[in-house]
């Protein structure tokens, strides 16, 4: 067993000391796991609760006065008003900028929870963690976000405890079996977030809301909202660049990209892009899969 770090709660030690294993695997995944020669040894988890706000750089004072300069190297795009007019209703400029401080805080929360899960896995002498699930959610109405990462620690039947950090993967069951058959071994899960704040320009605001520009509206038909497209494209590119940095030359498989949009107030939005995938490494040549059996449903 061992106890590499003293900050696991007392309840964890009691749970791990119990004779029975616990696993978050469904029965089909459990069966596939035994079939691969793995035995589940325990459900492992890690947490990180963080205070959370979608603060803008400079806060409310910045808004409407002058464009934000951006941190060096961050994505930043300005949209000048082409109409040459200023008023309380008419925005003189719009801006897309990367909120690298949000991305950094997210990474910190996720990594802390992840390494705590690994601590539990190491305490169990695991070789790997399969079927990882992560949830990032707000705790009631506290302005607190909790990162919760969990998975099932496994041991290769008959093998001595792993001398290296256990590998982790979102996959379990037959999907994981296929990865091994294809000649890959899992290295770790990869997760990253990109956050782009959109401060809509007068044109974007009009196109989104149909407000504030009625005198130019007469001859405008359906049109692409350039600023929004640009923000979404940038968020996707940023998140892919983050993932590439974490890969270190390995392959990334089973990627899932989720884009979400949050509106703080009219014309002030955050585009968030979350990427999750499995970092894999090749260990042998590809064995072709057996030829699949075609099936037709009769009902």
């Amino acid at each position: 067993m061992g106890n590499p770090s003293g900050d696991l709660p007392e309840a964890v030690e009691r749970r791990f000391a119990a004779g029975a294993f616990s696993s978050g695997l469904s029965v089909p995944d459990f069966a596939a796991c035994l079939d691969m020669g793995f035995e589940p040894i325990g459900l492992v988890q890690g947490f990180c609760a963080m205070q959370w706000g979608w603060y803008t750089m400079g806060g409310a004072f910045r808004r409407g006065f002058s464009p934000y300069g951006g941190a060096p190297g961050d994505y930043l795009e300005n949209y000048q008003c082409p109409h040459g007019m200023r008023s309380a209703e008419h925005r003189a400029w719009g801006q897309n900028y990367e909120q690298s401080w949000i991305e950094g805080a997210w990474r910190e929360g996720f990594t802390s929870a992840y390494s705590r899960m690994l601590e539990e896995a190491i305490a169990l002498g695991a070789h790997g963690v399969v079927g990882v699930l992560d949830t990032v959610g707000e705790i009631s109405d506290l302005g607190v976000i909790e990162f919760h990462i969990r998975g099932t620690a496994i041991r290769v039947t008959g093998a001595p405890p792993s001398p290296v950090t256990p590998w982790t993967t979102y996959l379990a069951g037959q999907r994981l079996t296929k990865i091994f058959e294809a000649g890959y071994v899992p290295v770790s899960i990869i997760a990253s977030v990109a956050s782009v704040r959109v401060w809509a320009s007068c044109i974007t605001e009009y196109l989104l809301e149909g407000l504030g520009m009625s005198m130019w509206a007469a001859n405008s038909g359906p049109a692409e909202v350039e600023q929004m497209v640009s923000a979404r494209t940038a968020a996707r590119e940023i998140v892919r660049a983050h993932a590439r940095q974490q890969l270190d030359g390995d392959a990334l498989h089973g990627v899932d990209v989720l884009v979400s949009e949050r509106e703080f107030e009219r014309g002030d939005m955050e585009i968030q892009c979350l990427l999750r995938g499995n970092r894999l490494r090749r260990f042998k040549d590809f064995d072709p899969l057996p030829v699949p059996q075609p099936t037709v449903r009769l009902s």
Partner: protein
Amino acid sequence: MSDATNDLPEATGHRLEELEHGLFTSDLSVNEFLLIKEVGFHPVGFVMGSSIYHTGFQTRKWGQSQELTKLTEAMYNARELAMTRMEEEAAELGADGVVGVRLDVNYYEWGKDAAEFIAVGTAVKAEDGVSRLNKLGRPFTSDLSGQDFWTLLQTGYLPQGLVMGTCVYHIAHRGLGQTLSTTGQNVELPNFTQALYEARELAMTRMQDEATRLEASGIVGVRLEEKSHQWGSHTIEFLSLGTAVRQTSSEVTLAKPTTIISLDN
């Protein structure tokens, strides 16, 4: 049938009597029914147990994260009562176990601070006549579907019981000073991390203790559920549920799955 611990309502007696004459009710789908037959079990009846429980109220300290032990106990006992009554129904039918168990909590307008806990499932009996009762001499319970039950038996494991652990936890409110000192930053709140971690671990350890009592080799399909029920947002119940299993043979008879490609669109 034995009449030990027989506190089942009269209506049950009549229904169960009919079931004993060979007619069975079940909420299994046709596929589940066939799979359960395939592994040598026969459904004997749809069984249920319920308990209406006054969960009560417990004072909490505004600024302190703590377990609300009274509520934890209430939530646990109420479910345990419902489960035990369901097991009694199953035992009455001479069943070896109950599959497809669902545990629900209902709140009604007529009962403030009270809740109805219900457990329902399909009782099954082994066709070879060999008892599959668990270590406590009671029918096993599990939330496994027919498909899962079939697959599990192919791996040489047998369900022993639906095991659970719960922990009702109050999460501290943050003082104005604390909130102000971190305004404008996204930073970790170690106290919150630790409190929520501990609450879930307590629930899981209690579940584990139940499995140990059944002399199980492990628990599969562990789920962690979080609900605020009717206590307001700062009080959360962490419920951990899973099916305890015992290895009865080291032989895995699960055939290698065939890869298929569906030609349906």
